[in-house]
């Protein structure tokens, strides 16, 4: 098993944000966490990434306990997060943003070839490579955020609401890219509010509500689950 989250409890001061979450992800899968605002999706990703500390529970990555591992060592082990709201370094150029993704890579030749590869995948970024990250459009920033994540050569990519604020056509494009990245061998944990899109590319899904997993199953099943349709797919699927 690639990632296993066991009985995770996370607090913000007195706020009990994650109330014993359990889920797992097999190598090569796309797994999605869906849920409304404040369900605890970003909290889950940030705890895996080492920005937040669990009060109890366990996170295992390839069998190794990483619950209390430092953020930079999480990246070193092959997990990278593409955060909610993209979080591009606005004062760095596009290329420099990509280089920050490769911060822990040491092989210069490999960094160059990875750079070439992501610029090939995202031709728009090549056109804008000298521009400041802050001057890109929302869609371009999302592409840059994903590309920056890929520069760390992850085996597990954590994506936090990549569709946020994008036009339907861009959402299609981004999801196409996610599927493509997955087909090339990267496992993906996808957090989304756009349940329709997320479930359509995922293998399995978990539904989060106020810090708990309330439903889980194969993505196709969840897409047709009456409760999911009612709550997340606008009633009539």
């Amino acid at each position: 098993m690639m990632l296993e989250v066991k009985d995770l409890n996370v607090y913000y001061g007195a706020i009990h944000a994650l109330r014993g979450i359990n889920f797992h992800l097999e190598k090569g899968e796309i797994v999605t966490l869906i849920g409304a605002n404040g369900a605890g999706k970003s909290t889950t990703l940030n705890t895996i990434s080492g920005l937040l500390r669990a009060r109890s529970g366990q996170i295992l990555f390839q069998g190794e306990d990483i619950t209390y591992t430092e953020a930079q060592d999480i990246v070193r082990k092959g997990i990278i997060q593409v955060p909610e709201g993209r979080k591009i370094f606005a004062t760095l150029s596009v290329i420099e943003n990509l280089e920050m993704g490769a911060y822990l890579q040491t092989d210069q030749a490999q960094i160059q070839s990875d750079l070439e590869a992501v610029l090939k995948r995202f031709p728009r970024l090549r056109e804008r490579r000298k521009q400041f990250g802050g001057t890109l459009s929302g869609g371009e920033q999302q592409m840059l955020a994903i590309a920056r994540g890929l520069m760390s050569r992850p085996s597990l990519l954590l994506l936090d609401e990549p569709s946020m604020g994008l036009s339907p056509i861009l959402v299609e494009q981004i999801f196409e890219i996610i599927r493509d990245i997955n087909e090339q061998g990267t496992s993906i944990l996808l957090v989304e509010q756009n349940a329709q899109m997320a479930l359509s590319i995922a293998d399995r899904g978990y539904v989060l509500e106020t810090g708990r997993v309330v439903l889980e199953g194969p993505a196709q099943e969840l897409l047709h689950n009456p409760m999911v349709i009612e709550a997340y797919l606008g009633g009539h699927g």
Partner: protein
Amino acid sequence: MNSSKAVPSTPSFLDFLVRRKILGLLLLILILLLVLWKLGSELVTNPTLFLQQVINGLQLGFVYALIALGYTMVYGIVRLINFAHGDVFMVGAFMSYYAIARVQLHTWPAKVFPNLSPGLSIGIGSITVILLSMAICALVAITIERVAYKPLRNAPRISALITAIGVSFFLEYFGALNFVFSPNFITYKRPFDVTTWMVSAQGVQALQKGQAIPEKTVIFSNISIIIVVVSILLLVVLQYIVGKTKIGKAMRAVAYDKQTARLMGINVDSVISVTFAIGAALAGAAGMLYAIAFPQVFFWMGIIPGLKAFVAAVLGGIGSIPGALVGALIMGQAEVLSAAYISTPMRDAIAFTILIIVLLVRPTGIFGEAQREKA
């Protein structure tokens, strides 16, 4: 802006704000015109004296720039006005003093390679001394950051600010102890002899010892040249580090957004340490250069240059590296010109008047960005 949103129904208050800004601007323009008029007329009546002042101001401005960079870089990355920075400058001056006067470190090349030309050997020796001062200041700053500021990283900024003032007092009065730097004024021993040249219509000539300075000449010394050259070299190196190296890019990334920097695997703590170290190394270099120009060291010597460099950083736009340089060059000129044309004691008052005007008219400084969203 905020106030106008908060109280849209009271136009008189809005009017007041608008008027105050206009008043401030008018004041600024008036002062600028007066200054220009005054300087213009001085330039016409005695151009050599004026030129002389500009040269002196340039030398001072570059020293301020080296100090101001430390303020601005540290502010950029941890939003802290590091009031102990001026005292790190003092430590730098003292370290070079000990290296030269007590250890004769600047003479090592002459001892090891006796047939080196004297100029080259003193040059290498002096570079060794400045590098040593820079390294010690860097270590001091890293220690200060780890011990005093890091535990307060997530505390309100005012707590960190007060701590910085505490660290500043600590360095000063610890330095004043008899077995540390002592409470006395100490004459600084320059590693090299001063050579002065005079520039006049007849060309450039060396000024002999004891020779009176003739009319209509501008004099400058190897000290001014060394200060300007060393400062520019250090600025180029800094520009390269911040702009082109991996650690420099990481510094900018951390300054912009620490959380996301951590998500990329950047060790934020060590990047912050490096930033403090670089700023302090520049202050250490400035300490030695300042002591060469004004050859006296004492435990309080960092306060006024530190404050002026801070004003320079605010004037340029705190957080902005080019801003620190421009602000410092302006401060250097303002200080020297007001000492020459108004009165010597006025020069410090002028520095802080500039601070007040900047805060009134353009709190973000010349190169300052508008408040941006921060994580």
